């Protein structure tokens, strides 16, 4: 993956290699051209050289005739053999022929032609002299001066001819040399140079080719790497190409590329939308400002980052878009930051809440007389909360927070115990709860309770704790214990009163009643009318007293025993109570209607007493001319529907309502009717002890409820009871 090193970095580019290639091609062309040229010149030169050789050959042939003829003449002269003379004519013919041919070969070489023109004359003289030899004269000839002269004359001709020949050949050689020079001047490159150049060009070619090839391979790898990235990246990457109108203004964009991520957003694959216009596929881009951003990026060439929300077919998203210019278009990298955004929002909210909570915590420390500390054990730094300073009688930050400084406040008698305890909890890193005294600034001794434990945060151990001022708490507790003791005492007194009331008071009363009944039985006929009346009054008083005692007893019993709470079916309870009251109901002709009542948790005998007392009240305080009508109803209400002034605990409540059409009472008396022995009506008119409703109130209070009476004089009474309602679990 070495090629990745280059990815995204500035690359040297392909241009140098192309230049190298071009250079190599030029070199090769040059070599080919020059080679051709040199080849051509070589051929020409070779032709010329062979021409020269031929000319020289012809010259030699021509002049060989003269030599042959002379030597024949000379031989004749010497040998006097006339047969030597005969070939001379042949030499002469041949020389004419060669001379003509040579003239042809010379062409337009004026110099040589000029020399050739000298030849015929000399040749004619030579042959003329040679022909003048006669066989008879040969002998004479040898002796004659004339002959010698003639031979020397012939030799003279021959020398001249030889000279011409030499000149001619020299001229031809000069010409040959000249031509070679001309040829060599044309050969600019030697074969070795050509070889080197070719090899160089080939080398360049191969280098450039291998470079380009490796680049191609790298490009391929890079491309597949890019493709890989594009398909796996979590962002949506698109390339939009600008669509311009005739004026050159951008009117739309064509989706040229988008990665597969788009499928998750709009439910369409990349292939489906590629090539389409953004105004068709993403019409919202034209309106939400993105289009303008694209144009700006293209105009300025500066990349932009935009956060925006989108409602796409597959949901609501928040994207962070990075838009950069590429050619005549933009690349858009859209990162889905929906979750991050939500997390950020949540974090911000949590932070705000935390701030509020912190503020509350600070206040609550003050209110609850609590101080706290955090002890970074590794760094040995302690942080006291503001209120811990206040607890010690100082202003926040008045002294350095340290273990030693804190211990200096501890009461000397508790110091050792606390230090030993600290060693122990440090060793075991355990949670602890201790109570000790501190001497706050100003000498005030406070009782505090500290709760300490260890927490680990990023590998460091912290000891954190809360110190609570429990001075007043302890004081209250002590008072409470004293009060409790007092209460227990008064309770046991009450118990003994109960005993007295139930037994000792009833005992003599019962006997009085017993004796009255005996007296009445025995003396009925002997008593005067007045005596009978008195006896009846005594009995009535005794009965009333007994009734009073029983009610008082039942009141104190209700007050004393909360009783066992069980499931009580109020319908069943009501039935039982109505059964107990059946005689009275019959006597008064009362109409009692009740709706369906719920099952509640409560003390059965107390709830029975409650129903009994309320119903017998209604039966008792009836209008003299009307039969009682009593309606019992119930409903379940939430706590806020109950009178808020009662300050009842939050719960659901069962509201029981008893409405009658009796004599009622004045509303302003309503608070009095629940008091012990309080009676609103004259004794003679209505029998009663003034305990019935007091008992009711006690029972309702025992059940953590509330009872209220509403009435109007002569218009009946309405008793409303609220009892906390919890649904008994199904059996």
């Amino acid at each position, binding site marked *: 993956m070495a090629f990745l090193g280059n990815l995204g970095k500035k690359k040297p580019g392909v241009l140098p290699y192309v230049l190298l290639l071009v250079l190599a091609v030029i070199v090769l062309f040059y070599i080919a051209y020059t080679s051709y040229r040199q080849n051509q010149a070589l051929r020409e030169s070779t032709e010329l050289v062979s021409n020269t050789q031929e000319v020289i050959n012809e010259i030699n042939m021509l002049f060989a005739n003269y030599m042959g003829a002379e030597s024949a003449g000379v031989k004749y002269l010497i040998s006097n053999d006339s047969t030597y003379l005969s070939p001379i004519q042949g030499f002469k013919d041949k020389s004419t022929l060669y001379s003509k041919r040579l003239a042809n070969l010379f062409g337009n070489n004026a110099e040589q032609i000029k020399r050739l023109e000298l030849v015929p004359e000399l040749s004619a003289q030579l042959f003329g002299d040679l022909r003048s030899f006669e066989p008879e004269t040969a002998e004479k000839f040898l002796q004659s001066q004339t002959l010698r002269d003639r031979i020397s004359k012939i030799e003279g001709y021959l020398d001249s001819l030889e000279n011409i020949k030499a000149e001619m050949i020299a001229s031809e050689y000069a010409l040959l040399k000249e031509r070679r020079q001309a040829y060599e001047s044309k050969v600019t490159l030697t074969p070795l140079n050509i070889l080197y150049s070719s090899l160089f060009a080939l080398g360049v070619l191969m280098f450039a080719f291998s470079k380009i090839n490796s680049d191609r391979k790298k490009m391929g790898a890079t491309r597949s790497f890019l493709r890989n990235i594009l398909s796996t990246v979590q962002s949506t990457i698109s390339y939009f190409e600008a669509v311009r109108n005739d004026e050159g203004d951008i009117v739309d964009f064509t989706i040229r590329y988008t990665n597969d991520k788009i499928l998750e957003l709009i439910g369409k694959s990349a292939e489906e939308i590629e090539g389409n216009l953004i105004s068709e596929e993403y019409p919202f881009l034209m309106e939400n400002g993105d289009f303008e951003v694209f144009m700006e990026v293209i105009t300025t060439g500066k990349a932009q980052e935009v956060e925006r929300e989108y409602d796409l077919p597959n949901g609501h998203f928040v994207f962070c878009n990075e838009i950069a210019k590429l050619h005549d278009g933009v690349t858009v990298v859209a990162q889905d930051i929906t979750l991050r955004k939500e997390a950020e929002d949540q974090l911000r909210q949590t932070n705000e809440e935390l701030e509020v909570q912190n503020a509350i915590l600070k206040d609550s420390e003050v209110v609850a007389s609590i101080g706290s500390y955090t002890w970074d054990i590794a760094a040995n730094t302690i942080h006291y909360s503001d209120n811990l300073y206040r607890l010690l009688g100082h202003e926040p930050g008045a002294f350095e927070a340290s273990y030693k400084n804190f211990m200096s406040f501890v009461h000397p008698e508790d110091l050792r115990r606390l230090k030993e305890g600290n060693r122990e909890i440090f060793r075991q890193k355990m949670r602890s709860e201790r109570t000790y005294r501190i001497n706050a600034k100003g000498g005030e001794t406070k009782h505090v309770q500290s709760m300490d434990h260890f927490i680990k945060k990023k590998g460091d151990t912290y000891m954190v704790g809360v110190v609570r001022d429990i001075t007043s708490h302890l004081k209250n507790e002590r008072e409470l214990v004293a009060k409790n003791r007092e209460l227990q005492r008064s309770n046991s007194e009450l118990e003994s009163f109960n005993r007295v009331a139930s037994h000792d008071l009833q005992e003599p009363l019962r006997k009085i*009643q*017993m004796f009255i009944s005996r007296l009445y039985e025995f003396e009925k006929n002997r008593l005067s009318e007045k005596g009978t009346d008195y006896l009846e009054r005594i009995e009535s008083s005794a009965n009333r007293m007994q009734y009073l005692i029983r009610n008082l007893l039942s009141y104190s019993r209700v007050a004393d025993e909360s009783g066992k709470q069980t499931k009580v079916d109020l319908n069943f309870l009501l039935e039982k109570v109505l059964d107990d009251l059946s005689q009275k109901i019959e006597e008064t002709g009362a109409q009692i209607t009740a709706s369906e009542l719920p099952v509640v948790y409560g003390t059965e005998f107390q709830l029975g007493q409650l129903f009994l007392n309320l119903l017998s009240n209604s039966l008792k305080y009836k209008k003299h001319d009307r039969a009682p009508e009593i309606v019992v109803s119930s409903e379940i209400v939430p706590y806020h529907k109950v009178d808020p002034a009662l300050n009842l605990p939050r719960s659901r409540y069962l509201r029981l309502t008893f409405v009658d059409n009796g004599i009622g009472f004045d509303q302003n008396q309503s608070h009095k009717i629940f008091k012990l022995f309080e009676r609103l009506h004259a004794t003679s008119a209505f029998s009663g002890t003034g305990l019935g409703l007091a008992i009711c109130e006690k029972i309702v209070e025992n059940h953590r409820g509330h009872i209220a009476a509403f009435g109007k004089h002569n218009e009946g009474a309405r008793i409303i009871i609220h009892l906390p309602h919890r649904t008994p679990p199904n059996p």
Partner: protein
Amino acid sequence: MATNPMKVVLVDDDEDDRMFFSDALREIDIDTELRQFENGKEFLSYLEQEGTEGPHLIFLDLNMPVMNGFECLKALRSHPDYKDLVVAIYSTSSSEKDIEETFVNGANIYINKPNRFDELKKTLAQVVKRHARYRENALDQANFLFRI
């Protein structure tokens, strides 16, 4: 029946109550023989002295000096010879606690002392007559349990 009167015992410290009781019992048309004791201890020592068979029906007051009704009841029930005797508690107390405790300790009947003589008579007649029926039919006395 006439040949074998029902032996009834009343243990009560109150003289007036004993008087009312004996008057009422006498007025019932069943042949009974009443013995009276002032407290539990007296009654127990009588049982031991005599050595004879126990009474048929015992009426026991609860609140008494020396030995109260609860103690007496427990003593009777823990004694093998007396544990089957029929005991009716005869008390002023109408406390549920007392009633429950005496039944748990083996009382057969609980009677609240009435405050009218005719009521007392009626109650005693009810108890005595019912007991007589049990005796005749030799029913299991343990099932003889009620409250008046």
